[in-house]
Structures are given as structure tokens and as C-alpha cells.
């Protein structure tokens, strides 16, 4: 009946953004890490599907944090392993 659920609008879902290649390389050099060391998110995650990200993209997540007010987190999109 209702329109398709927009996951992004739910209060529990923070803002997800796809990062550009420049932003990613800046991020990796700032923390001196590789993308593999980032937390992961599955490619079939509802929020990832919503913003249209694909495997190997890095996503910036802007959380409303209890402690800092606003916090940025990053996740690498990976394919969901088959069980």
C-alpha cells in the first residue's frame, strides 16, 4: 500500500555518503591504513542499497554521537560472504 520504505529517513539510520577517490586516499593517509582495516558494511545492507554504493566503495557515516554530538565513521563496502 504505502510507498517503498525509505530506510535513510528512519531516525536510527545515520547519514550515509559515498566517498570520492580523493577523499578515500586522504583518509587512508591520515590514519596510515589500508581500506581493508576499515570496518565493513555488506553490499546488500539496506542503507547501502539506498544510496547506490557498490563493493569496494568507502562510505562516510555521519552519526549523532552521545558523546561528541557529531561523529564521522567510515565503512568499506564488501560482498556478503556466502554461508
Amino acid at each position, binding site marked *: 500500500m*504505502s510507498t517503498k520504505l525509505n530506510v535513510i529517513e528512519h*531516525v*536510527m539510520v545515520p547519514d550515509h555518503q559515498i566517498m570520492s577517490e580523493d577523499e578515500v586516499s586522504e583518509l587512508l593517509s591520515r590514519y596510515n591504513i589500508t581500506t581493508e582495516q576499515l570496518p565493513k558494511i555488506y553490499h546488500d545492507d539496506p542503507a547501502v542499497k539506498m544510496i547506490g554504493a557498490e563493493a569496494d566503495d568507502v562510505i562516510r557515516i555521519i552519526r549523532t554521537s552521545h558523546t561528541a554530538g557529531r561523529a564521522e565513521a567510515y565503512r568499506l563496502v564488501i560482498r556478503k560472504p556466502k554461508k
Partner: protein
Amino acid sequence: MALDAKYDKKIEAAALPQKTKDQLRKYLDGKEITDAQFKQILERVLNEYQSTRIEACEAVGIIAAQSIGEPGTQMTMRTFHYAGVAEINVTLGLPRLIEIMDARKEPSTPTMTVFLEPDYGNDRDRAREVSWQIEAAPLHEFGDITTDMENMQVVVHLNTKVCDKRKIAPSEIMEVAPKKIRDRRHYRDFEHEIDEASATIIFMPKDKESYQNLFQLAEHVRNVIVQGIDDIIRVVVRKETGEYILYTEGSNLKDVFDVVGVDTTRTRTNNISEIAQVLGIEAARNAVIHEAVSTLNEQGIAVDVRHLMLVSDMMCMEGEVKQIGRHGIAGEKESVLSRAAFEVTVNHLLDAAVANEVDELSGVTENVIVGQPIQLGTGDVKLIAIRQNEN
């Protein structure tokens, strides 16, 4: 008076968290200060912030474990409380906390808090209507069911008044009922006849000889869910902070989101794995924090959110909610010794030996086991002397 633009800019540029910036702005708002004073204030705030940050190489995991574990000992072991909200029984206290940390697929008492869109939330009758769309209602609530033993059939007379009140057409019920008995209840040994005019359905078992089958059929007919969502056993409508909110016993986030009038931006469930499926891992992370904080607070235990955030972050690192325990975080550690030190020691050592695993001795537990300095605090720093030219 708004804050001076140049100060505002400087605060924005400072390396401070958003919350501290906002607090500082609020504090300075309307106060007469000179440039020198402002500079001093900002410097002090910066220093204070830096000194409260956690040091590198600090063992935050251990601190979190202690900080949750100690107050946890004071929690009620078993609670048969009604959660205060609308007579719906909810698991609380230690059992609930264990449930959250174990990342169970389904909590022992799933419940939902369904918020309504403004049009529905402000009107008691319309809120009630939404609740009927959600609450699972079996067929016997909509009419009289008689088991006719003489003709070997089950006759259902629908009560059109009840149907009207519940906003469902008798024809819809008559169509749904036989279908649901076949699909959801997996009982197929019957035939049915629909009489639209008198709102009657007649069910006949295929086997005309067996009374057992007839009664079995009657039981299915009585209890088949014809309106609402199958998993949601009960709905309670309550008025809170000026709007009507539905509390449910049983949870099905996906189907509830499809009901007209439900506010899909605020409605939530206490089933974390369901949230991970429908709303994604980030929402699940928030849900873990929210559930853990509210469980602890309900018991009057104050644990700093930072510890729970760390736990939640660890659980949601790999893209799905993982339990704290040997099937989750503790079981996937790199080090063999560390895993063996946790649970099922022999199995881990045996498997590691078979798989020819190597322990790099880079963590804390394994170094304690072999008796080396651990890589934490001062133990983490390595000094390398660079020989200067000696002439």
C-alpha cells in the same frame, strides 16, 4: 544578541567535538568579552578537552568490561516485571542484557513501539483502526463457527457488524481464510464453499469418514489469522506526550512499515537482528546501544555510554551483528592462545594444531600466557637507538 561572527568562526575552526562547540557557543552567548578573554577561554577549553581524551595504548576494552561487569553483578538475576508500559511483559535486567550481547536472532519477548503519522496519531479512533491492521485477529472473532457433525462440515457465519467495525470486508475474509489455512498453517485436506449473500463459508474435510479430521479442520478454521500481521499477538494503544502510540507484543518491522498510517521514521522494535535486516548495520549499532542503555538505566545502573558504544562498535564491525562470545568476537580472534584462554580450550588447540596455525604473540592474553611484557601502555613503546657518528 547573537555571538560575534569572528568568535563563531574561531570556535568552528577549533579542534573540538560538535557538542563542546555548541556548549561553548551557548555559554558565551550574550556575554561581553574582549578578544584577549576569548582567546584565553578557547585555549582553556582546548586544553581541558585534550586532557580528557583517552591516551593512545590505553586498554579500553578491559575498562569497558569492568565498567559493565561490576554494575552488572547488582542487576536482578530474574525479573518478572511488567515494563511499566501498557501491561506488556518485557524481559528486563540481566537476562535482557545477556540477550543483547549474545546477538540472539529473536529476543524472548519481542515488542515494538509503533509511532503513527500525525493524522492518525492525534485521533483515538484512527489510531485504533491502525491497530486493527496490525493486531493478528483469528477468524472466530469475526463470526460464529459451528461444527456440523451430521453433514461433516464446518460452517462459518460472519458477523457483518463486527467486520464493519474492524474495517474489513466480509468478502476479503472469505477469500483470505481458506488461502491462509493452506499457506500459513499447511493444512490442505479440505474443500470450501463461499456464499457471498449470507456471508457464510463452509469448510468440508476431504475425508468424510473421520471425525478426527473434522475437528482438526475446525481448529484450523477457528484460529486462522484473517486480519493483521501474524507475528503480532497483541496491540495496546496508549496516549503519550500528546499522541497515540501503539505498543505491540510480537514484532515484524517489515510488515508494520507497510501498514498505512505508521510513521516509518520513528517506529522501532527491540529485535536487533530484525533492525539489522530491515534498516542496516548502522541502525543495528544504534539499537544495540539504545537497548543496552535502557536496560541498564531501567535497573538504576549508570554505565557511561562510551563503554556500551565500544561494545556495540565491536559487535557491528564486520557488517553484521556478531555476539560477544565464542561464536562471535572472542571466537574470531587472530591468536590461538587467546582463543584457547576463553572457552573450549582443548578444541581450539586441537584445531589450531591440525591447521598448522602460528601465533604471532601480538595481543595481550597470549603474552601473559607465555610470560612476556604485554603490548600496552609503556609496554607498547619500543626504543630504538640510532647510533650517532662517533667523531
